[in-house]
């Protein structure tokens, strides 16, 4: 299986995502430079964390104009699995590939720490081997992860079960105290209607090895491996993957 890791100027978790795919999970991986338009045969795309274009103006605001985003859009349109992590999530929001927008953390400070996340949906390619209600402990690292969506949009995404992960306490209970950034409805990850594009603020690639203090992020990678192998031919088969 081949992972394509998109590198924007200012991406800084690109090597981490690449390492997770290649060294931790033993898959093929390619960096895809933002000015290129060739996805080099990737089966799954990762938009990694970082500060694309310095996050100047707004997080993700300029990255969406990169030449690579055309092919990314087309890939997503064909049902290919796309994961945006942190800054990658912000870019997917700005590109309109996912609904909503990011505001500054309500505490106004960058926060780097482990958080607890409840798996809400398991019919996305990035959560299919998790259990609904499973609580994951994965780190965050962001200053603008306060997810927002207008009331109507929020209704729609909740009704469509597009909220994939929520911030919770260690027992999986949503509470304001355990919401690290003020995200509406404690939303930590969402997917598109078709469910093949997922954006998440937490960093699963930082939680794939015991040495790093936890392995709960593995389920995200294992899910997409499972989705792609059991789905056989990519695209459409993937949609049927999972429950």
């Amino acid at each position, binding site marked *: 299986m081949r992972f394509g890791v998109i590198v924007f*100027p*200012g991406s*800084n978790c690109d090597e981490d995502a690449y390492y997770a795919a290649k060294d931790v999970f033993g898959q093929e991986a390619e960096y895809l430079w933002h000015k290129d338009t060739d996805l080099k045969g990737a089966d799954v795309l990762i938009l990694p964390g970082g500060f694309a274009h310095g996050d100047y103006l707004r997080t993700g605001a300029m990255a969406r104009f990169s030449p690579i985003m055309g092919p990314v859009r087309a890939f997503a349109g064909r049902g290919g699995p796309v994961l945006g992590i942190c800054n990658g999530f912000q870019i997917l929001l700005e590109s309109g590939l996912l609904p909503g927008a990011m505001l500054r953390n309500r505490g106004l*400070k*960058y926060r780097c720490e482990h958080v607890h996340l409840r798996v809400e949906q398991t019919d996305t390619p990035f959560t299919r081997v998790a259990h609904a209600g499973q609580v994951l402990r994965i780190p965050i690292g962001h200053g603008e992860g306060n997810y927002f969506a207008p009331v109507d949009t929020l209704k729609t995404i909740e009704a469509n079960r597009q909220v994939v992960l929520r911030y919770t306490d260690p027992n999986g209970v949503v509470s304001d105290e355990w919401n690290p950034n003020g995200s509406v409805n404690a939303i930590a990850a969402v997917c598109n209607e078709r469910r093949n594009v997922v954006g998440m603020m937490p960093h699963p690639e930082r939680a794939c090895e015991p040495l790093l203090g936890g392995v709960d992020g593995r389920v995200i990678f294992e899910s997409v491996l499972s989705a792609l192998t059991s789905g056989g031919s990519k695209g459409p088969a993937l949609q049927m993957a999972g429950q």
Partner: protein
Amino acid sequence: MIDPQILERHGLKPDEYDRIVGFLGREPNLTELGIFSVMWSEHCSYKSSRVHLKTLPTRGPQVLQGPGENAGAVDIGEGLAAVFKIESHNHPSFIEPYQGAATGVGGIIRDIFTMGARPIALLNSLRFGAFDAPGTRRLLEGVVAGIAGYGNSIGIPTVGGEIAFEPSYAGNPLVNVFCLGIAWQADIIKGVASGVGNAVYYVGAKTGRDGIHGATMASAEFDDKSAEKRPAVQVGDPFMEKLLLEACLEVMKTDALVGIQDMGAAGLTCSTTEMGSRGGAGIEIDTALVPQRETGMTPYEIMLSESQERMLLVVKRGREAEVERVFDKWDLHAVHIGEVTDNGLLRVKHHGTLVAEIPNRALTDEAPLYMRPMTEPEYLADVQKLDLDNLRGPERPALRDQNAALLAILGSPTVASKRWIYRQYDHMVRTNTINLPGLGAGVVRIKGTDRALAMSVDGNGRYCYLDPYRGAMLAVAEAARNVACCGARPLGATNCLNFGNPERPAIMWQFAKAVEGIGAACRALGVPITGGNVSLYNETDGKAIYPTPTIGVVGLLEHADRVVSRRFRDAGDAILLFGEGRGELGGSEYLKVAHDFVRGVPPALDLDAERALQDLLVRVADERLLRSAHDCSDGGIAVTLAECCFESGGIGAEVSIDGVRVAADARVNVAAALYGESASRVVVSVVTDAVTTVLERAAAANVPARVIGQTGGNRLRIAVAGQIAIDAAVDEAERVWSSAIEQAYAKRVA
């Protein structure tokens, strides 16, 4: 044309001016005077400190690069090198905390990747005025946000640091930043210019009028009038630096470079002369070719600008296009601004007209050197007196009970958890951090190997104020001990020397003593100094800061998975103490918290015993015999034990330690046993089966060691000489410790 006023504005003394005339054989023009003034400033020339720094040990089989380059380097095996250095950005951070700290981080990162190393970790050491003093919060929030803003954005984890609060830093905070990178030894590249006719390239941000005279400012005391002299603040651009970092590392892979150096203090001036001087060559540039952000800039301004995020490269002849291509890919434009010559001169042209011509060596090797007068400061004799039988009251009544005293110390900002700070730093990016901040030294694994590097920065201004020689030794010992506690063998050190005005003999004495102390400790502990930075004139209105040498030590763990952290791991483990407490309260956190004074002499340090202890720690960690290890420092063994319980899931401990007799009052004796800060002590926990082996190892190493208790329960109970002195619920103590700083800052302010 050069009158005394102009000289004074350039911070040059009349006799220094005479030397300039001597070197040139004529009067300098204004551009040349500017160049001399920045190169001969304390900041660039080290004219007051160099004679002392020369005494530091800088060699060892592991040292690949000692002082003199952009950063030092040590051998970490498998063909790899750890490249690291610490630097201060004190003055800029006082003027503009966010940008000052941010550009400090940017500067030290450039020093590391300039050497061909990929930066992988940052640390910082901070000093502010009293925690609750007006103004502290604004500075602290700004500095922390600035470090975070730059480091997080560029994607280098901040894996640790230290912070302390003392009134002496109120008008002059310290911001010292450390960066470490990894390079293939064979690929280390230096800041040299050589090869006549090779092209000199400029790359990075455009030059503006920022920080002109920054280097001379960093060498001048603040006074009421300096508010007007304050130059335009430099604004950091971490995005530009990220592009530069990636592009430079990519260019270095091509082997088309001869040398490279960042433009830090004294900008283009310093980089051209230093590169020329190291390569025994000359450099000729045309300032009109330098990319400029503002219009109408003079050669003087261009040469002295300290605009951030700029690099100077010497490119092999015929390889220019290759280099330009890489920079183009990253949307950076490398500009050919001059050539390497063989005449040993810095020659500056502007639109082809010669505007400055100075021999490199006049600016570097032959810069003034001073053996400044030194005298022991008068305050010393008095502050070293500590009469424990007549402790100056009024003692805070709440502290009459040892439980309350422990909680007060745990809640003091120097000891309390720094989570509120390090949570603002991305400390996990690059997925290497295996000892997160707060757990001891920062530890990062090296991908592709089994190895990991541990690093710690430490310093104790109080100790150095009371005895700069011993205080500096203790700083080296503590930094190395923190590294050894993780199981890593200390390999090398870097230092940042923050002092007052060296033209005052008492300050110069403190400086010289501190350097002596660093030298003695580094020699004994086998950690040569590979580089560092000196920051003098840290004074406001004639009042100097505590003398504050900050030491960064880097150590190697052969097996990353054998890393040890401070937390207890399980109930039922044996708790051992390595080393012995002597109830030394001089300069302690206890005296500060309970009596609000800084007095006495700092703890004694036996360097051989310290070395033996560190060797022992590395050995038993490597044998996987340790479950946790934490050194005794601020707050003594009581605080150490409490910290071992914290963030462990609430594991308590039952411990019994020896009493000491340092005063007539029994309560003072108990306090001394609990909170005394005797050096060379470490609390470890081991599974009970391993106790005998560990004690044998300790005996063989000549390190005093004994079992002092056991983990378990949810309370911390400490008996002193058989009598229960402390009996506290771990969760309550942890709440005090973990929330003290956070709570003070809970109310948000813009």
